[in-house]
C-alpha cells in the first residue's frame, strides 16, 4: 500500500527532527534564565525533568510536523506524479502503529511523571546532613511576611537564607490565595488561608533571586515580589543578630496593621515575633484580612481606629 519513496523521506524527516530538537534546546538554554538557571538542587532537578520530557516529545513531534508538511506538499492536487488512492481509508497495520507511537511516548513519560512526583514532592525533606532552617511564609494583601520561628525574627518582602542549608518553608495566607515562587530555587506552592503547605527548597549559590506571587490576588498583585538573598552561614547569623538588635516587634496589633491592604511596602524586619503567630494565623485564631472595605463591626476591634 505504501510507496517506497515515502520511506526515505521519513528517514530524512527523522534526522531533521533531531536537529530541530537540538536547535530548540540550544535556543531555550540560551534565552531562558529563571528556572533555566537553577541555583539549588530542587530547581536543578526540576529543570532536568523539564528537559527530559521536552526532548522525549520533540523526538516525535518534530518528525510528525515535517511529515505533515511533506505529505501535504507531495499530494497537492497539481502534482500529477503523486499517486491518487481514493480508497486508502483504513489499514489495520497503520492504525496499530499510530495508536502505539503516542501510547509508547506517554508510557515512558508517564514513568517519568510518576517517579519524579515522589522524588520531587514539595513536602519531601531534602537529603542533607544539615538540619533544615524553618521559615514560615504568610502572604498578605499585598506583601510577604517571612517568620523565622527558631530565630524569633521576621521580615517583610525580603527573604534571607543561608547557602547550603535545606529550607523548610511553611506557607499560608492571611487573605486570598497567592502562589509562592522563587523560580531559581524551585517550584510553586499555593498559600491558602486556614491551611499550611510545606515546601522544601535549598540555595546552593550565594546570590539574589527574584521571588513572586503567581496568582492574581487583587490590585497590588503586580508588586507582590521580593528578593531572596542567599548568603553564607556566617552572614546569615550576622543578619539574624542585627535583626534582633533593632526594629519593631511583631505582636498582635502590629500584625493587624500588616493585614490592612497596602502594596509596594519597602522591605523591613521585626526584631521579635509573638510566639505561635503562624499557628494562630493558620488555625484562624487571628482572622483574615478584611479586604478593601472593612466589615463595620470589626472596625471597633481595630485599635488603630
Amino acid at each position, binding site marked *: 500500500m505504501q510507496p517506497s519513496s515515502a520511506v526515505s523521506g521519513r528517514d530524512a524527516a527523522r534526522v531533521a527532527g533531531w536537529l530541530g530538537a537540538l536547535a530548540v534546546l540550544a535556543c*531555550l538554554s540560551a534565552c531562558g534564565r529563571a528556572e533555566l538557571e537553577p541555583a539549588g538542587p530542587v530547581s536543578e532537578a526540576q529543570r532536568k525533568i523539564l528537559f527530559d520530557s*521536552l526532548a522525549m516529545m520533540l523526538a516525535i513531534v518534530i518528525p510528525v510536523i515535517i511529515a505533515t508538511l511533506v505529505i501535504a506538499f507531495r*499530494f497537492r492536487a497539481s502534482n500529477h506524479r503523486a499517486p491518487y488512492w481514493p480508497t486508502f481509508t483504513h489499514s489495520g497495520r497503520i492504525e496499530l502503529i499510530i495508536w502505539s507511537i*503516542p501510547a509508547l511516548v506517554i508510557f515512558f513519560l508517564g514513568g517519568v511523571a510518576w517517579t519524579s512526583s515522589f522524588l520531587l514532592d514539595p513536602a519531601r525533606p531534602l537529603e542533607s546532613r544539615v538540619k533544615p532552617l524553618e521559615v514560615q511564609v504568610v502572604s498578605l494583601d499585598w506583601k510577604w511576611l517571612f517568620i523565622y520561628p527558631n530565630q524569633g525574627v521576621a521580615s517583610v518582602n525580603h527573604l534571607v537564607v543561608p547557602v547550603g542549608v535545606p529550607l523548610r518553608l511553611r506557607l499560608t495566607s492571611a487573605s486570598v490565595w497567592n502562589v509562592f515562587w522563587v523560580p531559581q530555587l524551585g517550584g510553586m506552592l499555593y498559600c491558602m488561608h*486556614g491551611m499550611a503547605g510545606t515546601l522544601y527548597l535549598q540555595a546552593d549559590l550565594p546570590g539574589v533571586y*527574584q521571588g513572586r506571587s503567581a496568582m492574581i490576588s487583587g490590585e497590588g*498583585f503586580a508588586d507582590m515580589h521580593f528578593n531572596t538573598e542567599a548568603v553564607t552561614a556566617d552572614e546569615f547569623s550576622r543578619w539574624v543578630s542585627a535583626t534582633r538588635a533593632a526594629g519593631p516587634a511583631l505582636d498582635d496589633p502590629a500584625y493587624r496593621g500588616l493585614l490592612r491592604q497596602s502594596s509596594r511596602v519597602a522591605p523591613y524586619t521585626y526584631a521579635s515575633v509573638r510566639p505561635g503567630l503562624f499557628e494562630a494565623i493558620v488555625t484562624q485564631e487571628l482572622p483574615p484580612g478584611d479586604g478593601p472595605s472593612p466589615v463595620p463591626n470589626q472596625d471597633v476591634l481595630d485599635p488603630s481606629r
Partner: protein
Amino acid sequence: MLGKLTWQAIPFNEPIPLISGFGVYLLVIALVAWVLRKGYGPYLWREWITSVDHKRIGIMYCLLAGVMLLRGFIDVIMLRLQQAMAFNAPGYLPPSHFDQIFSAHGTIMIFFVAMPFVIGLMNYVVPLQLGVRDVAFPTLNSVSLWLNAAGALLVNLSLVVGEFSRTGWLPYPPLSELRYSPGVGVDYYCWAIQISGIGTVMTGVNFVTTILKLRAPGMNYSRMPMFCWTALASNLLIIAAFPILTATIAMLLLDRYLGFHFFTDVSGGNSMMFMNLIWAWGHPEVYILVLPAFGIYSEVVSTFSRKPLFGYRSMIIATMAICIISFMVWLHHFFTMGAGPTVNAVFGIASMIIAVPTGVKIFNWMFTMYGGRVRYSSAMLWVIGFMVSFLIGGLTGVLLAVPVADFQLHNSMFLVAHFHNTIIPGVVFAIFAGYTYWFPKAFGFVLDERLGKWAFWLWFVGFWVAWAPGYVVGLEGMTRRLQHYDDPQWHPWLLLAGVGVLIILAGIVVQIAQLVVSIRTRDKRRDRTGDAWDGRSLEWATASPPPLFNFAILPNVTDQEPYWDIKQEALQAMQLVTPEPEYLPIEMPRHSPTGFVTAFIATVTGFALIWHIWWLAILGLVGAYATFVVFAWRDHTEFVIPAETVARIDRANREARAEYLRELAR
C-alpha cells in the same frame, strides 16, 4: 427603589471604558434606529428574531460570536499595549481596570466567542449532515441562543454600568468573595455565566436528542459524519459538565448574596472545593470546544483531499475516549496546591493519556491527505496551519501534565502561551475553516479566496509572533496577569508579542474586508449547485442556501459518505439516478418569540439581581414563568408547507443539480 444602583455606578472618572462603552451603545442604538427607519424591523422580527429554524439560529449564533470576537480582541489590544508600556512604569491602565480587562477577555473569548461560534456551526450543519429538517426541540434552540446573547449583553453592560469582575476568567474564591470583591463585578460575571450556562445545557440536551433520535433513514452510528460524532461527544460533555458550573457559581452566589460559607475559608468554608468543582467543569469545557473543532477539521481535510476520512473507526474511538478521559484530569490545573505525589502523578498520567487519542487524530488527518489530491483552498490552509501549530500546543500541554515540570510552569506565561496555542490553532482556526467551508452552503455564494488566504497567513504568523514570546518569558519566570513589571529581559518579548497582535489585527481586518467584498460581488461568486467544494456528506445534497425544510424527501443513507455515492452513481448513469419523488406536504415548527422574550426577561432579572433591585427581580421571575405558561399552552405548534410549494422549490434544485452533474461528467 434601585437597590445599589446609583450614579456612582457610571465610571465618569475613567474615560476609557466610558467613551468606548458609550460609543458601542450609540452604535447599537444607531443600528437599531436605522433598521427601524428602513422598515426592516418586522422582517427581522418575523424571519430572524422569532425564528426557530436551526439554520437561522446557527447564523445568529455565529454573528453574535463574531461581534463578541471583536470586543474580546479590543481587550487583547489593550492588554498588550499595557504590557508593552508598563516596563518600569505604570502604563496607562490602573490595576483595577487592567484586572477587569483580562477577566473580561477570557470570559468573553470562551463563553461568548468560542462557545457560540462552535454551537452556531453545529446548529447549522448537524441537522443537514444527519439529513433531517430541524433539531429535536426547535423552540428550545431559540431560547438557548437568546439566553447566550443575554449573557453577552450583561457582560457588555458592565462596561458602562458598574464594573466587571477583576478576578480572572474563573472567579477563584476567596478573592471573588464579598469580603475581597465587594463590587458588582463578580455578580455581573456570575449572572452572565448562569444565564448563558442554562442556554448551553439546553443546547446539549437538544443536540444529544437530535443526534441520537433524529437521523435520516439508514444513517446508523457507523455512517454518521465525523462532525456529527464530535458534536455528539461535545454535547454529552455539555450535559455532564455544565450543571457542575451552574451549581458551583450558584454556591458562590449564595456566599455573596446570603452569607453562606461554601468557599469563604472562614466558618468552615473551603476555597479548594471551588477549585476542584470549577475545573471538573473547566477541563471538559476544553474538549466541548475542541472536539467539534476536530470534527470540522475532519470534514475539511477529507473534502479537500478528495478522499474519505482515514481511520473512521479509530476517529470515533479516539473521540469517545477523549470524551470520557476529559472528566478524569481536572486536578492538573492545580498540581501546585500540594495534594501529594500520588494524586498528582495519577492525574498527570491521566492527562497525558488524552494525548494518545489526540495524536491518533493528527495521524489520521495526515493519512487522509496521504494518497489524496490536496487542494489548497483557504479552508484547507487553516487545517494545515492547525496541525502544525497544535502539535506544539499539545507538546507543551503534555509538558505541563508532568507535575514536577508544572511546579515551574504553572500560572506562568508559559501556561498562558500553552492554552492560547491550543485554543487559537485548535478552536479558532477550526471556526474559520468551518466558516469558510460552510459559508457557501448558508448564503449561496463563496467567500473571496484570495483575501481568505491572506487572512490565514496573517493569523498564522500573527499567532506565532504573539505567543512564541509567551513561552520564552514564561521560562524566564514571568507570571500571568502582571499589570506592570521591572524585569528588562521580558520587555523585548512583550513588545514582540504586541507586534504579533497587530498582525492578527490585520488578519481580522482582512476577514472583515473579505466578507464585505464577497457580499458586494456575490452575484459573481454564486454557487448554484449546492455543492461548492465537491463535498461528500449530506449537507451538500440540498440547495445552497437550503430551503426551510432542508430536504424535500429525507435521503436514504446507505453508506458513510452518502452524497459522494449519489454523485458517483449519477456520474456513471449520466443523470440524476432517482426519478422525481412524490412530494408530500411538510410540517414545520411555527416561529415563536419565546426565546427572545425569555432572554429579555433573563437580562432584566440578571441586572436586577446584580444591583439588588429585588422588586424587579421578582417581577422578572414572574414574567419568566408567565412566558413558560403561555408557551406551554399554545395550541398550534406547527404549520404545513403544501406539497406544491415543496415540489416547486425542489424541482429548481434538481434542475440545477442535474446541470452540475452534466458539468462534472464533462
